[in-house]
């Protein structure tokens, strides 16, 4: 299975481990990524918060590129990129005038035919495959699956899973051998959009999320968005109070990779600010003991 791949700016920088771990699990799970050539930034929050047309056009440029490169389905692992691309596709499809405008500016025959997929939509159909290939597995690691805002919302754009009671991420990590915990804040926003410009707010929101996950007994947080990751990993120390334990934050692809028995190095686990060492030890030692037992 070959798939159009839109990494977005983060996966080339702050979230390189997302990119790496995604590529690492591609082989074992039998999909191939074809990076969109000459892609540009989706526009992110700054575009849509200040200029709607700009937001649509920046996203549409990439959709048009995909179309011209013969790619029918684009997977954007970053939740923000996914949301921007999917929103543009949705709006163009529902607003004929906007579609005309887009075509004028892009000077091409853009038919808005490219489907946009999130990382969840990519992995959910692979759960049985993950389960089969999971070697040691995650050994019942208790994880809190964190969806955040843009993977599912708004539902008419994302068109995936139940917007208020999703289960896809839990299904995926469960297949990889983890035990997802039940917790309340998995759909709440971590505030990443204001991460740089209004750090105090972000610390407040992030803290609530971490607290809730910990209270539910999670040993790690699993995310599918580089913004959430940067926010909850990079700023976690600021969010915690003295003496509070740190909670490693894994990308979904890293969690799956670990479950598949891939090397932590391959998955970029060393790049996190919050150390993942203990977690890796917990998973692999569990694996060893299991191996010994059998």
């Amino acid at each position, binding site marked *: 299975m070959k798939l159009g791949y839109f990494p977005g*700016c983060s996966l080339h920088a702050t979230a390189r481990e997302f990119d790496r771990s995604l590529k690492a699990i591609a082989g074992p799970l039998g999909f191939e990524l074809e990076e969109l050539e000459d892609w540009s*930034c989706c526009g*992110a929050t700054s575009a849509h918060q*200040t200029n709607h047309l700009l937001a649509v056009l920046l996203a549409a*440029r990439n959709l048009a590129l995909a179309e011209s490169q013969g790619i029918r389905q684009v997977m954007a692992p970053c939740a923000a990129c996914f949301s921007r691309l999917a929103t543009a596709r949705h709006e163009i499809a529902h607003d004929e005038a906007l579609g005309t405008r887009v075509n004028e*500016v892009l000077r091409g025959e853009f038919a808005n035919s490219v489907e946009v997929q999130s990382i969840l939509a990519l992995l959910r159909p692979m759960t049985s495959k993950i389960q089969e290939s999971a070697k040691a597995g995650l050994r019942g690691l208790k994880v809190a699956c964190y969806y955040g*805002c843009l993977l599912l919302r708004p539902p008419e754009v994302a068109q995936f899973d139940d917007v208020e009671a999703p289960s896809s991420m839990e299904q995926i990590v469960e297949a990889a051998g983890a035990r997802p915990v039940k917790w309340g804040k998995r759909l*709440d926003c971590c505030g990443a959009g204001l991460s740089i*410009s209004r750090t105090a707010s972000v610390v407040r929101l992030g803290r609530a999320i971490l607290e809730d996950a910990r209270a539910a007994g999670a040993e790690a947080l699993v995310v599918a968005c580089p913004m959430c990751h940067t926010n909850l990993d990079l*700023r976690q120390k600021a969010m915690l109070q003295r003496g509070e334990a740190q909670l490693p934050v894994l990308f979904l692809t890293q969690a799956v990779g670990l479950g598949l028995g891939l090397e932590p190095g391959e998955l970029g686990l060393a790049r996190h600010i919050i150390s993942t060492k203990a977690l890796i030890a917990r998973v692999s030692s569990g694996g060893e003991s299991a191996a010994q037992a059998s």
Partner: protein
Amino acid sequence: MSEHESFDGSLAGEVRAATGLNVSACYQCGKCTAGCPMAEEMSLKPHQMLRLAQVDSRERLFEDDSIWLCLTCETCTARCPNGVDPARIIDCLRELALRAKASPPRRIAAFHRSFLEQIRENGRVFEFGLVANYKMRTGDLFADVTAAPGMLVRGKLALLPKGIEGIGEVRRIFATCAQAARKEGR
């Protein structure tokens, strides 16, 4: 944008013209505010923003920072019982505020400007450049300084921008939008 039905010059009319959305459909149930992660920091809550849009009270909306605190997490939109789409309306209010020359909070404005400049210049965003640019704009030289070295070590910040071939097209997009905004602003 202007292809939509145009209305009577009221704020609600402008929102409708730009988005096709009807602010009158808001019946002030407050479910948006109830679920908004930023509501407690906003002086105007989401339902109040919609109310002020209904009664054409632009000044109070535009001079307040609250619209700039919205994270566009879409919780309000997903749960709105009457299909109002507050997140999209607040996006639109911000755009209208910019056109009305109202200024967003300094840091937030600086962030957005730095971000978009990055895209215009390089086609993509390079966080190191972004942070540097942002710091230049805000003079906030020391914030996040502690995080940067760690990020560099872990290869998290790319130091040098890598351009894209289609930069011409990206710049044309920016030019078009700037022109359109000027035209609408008049």
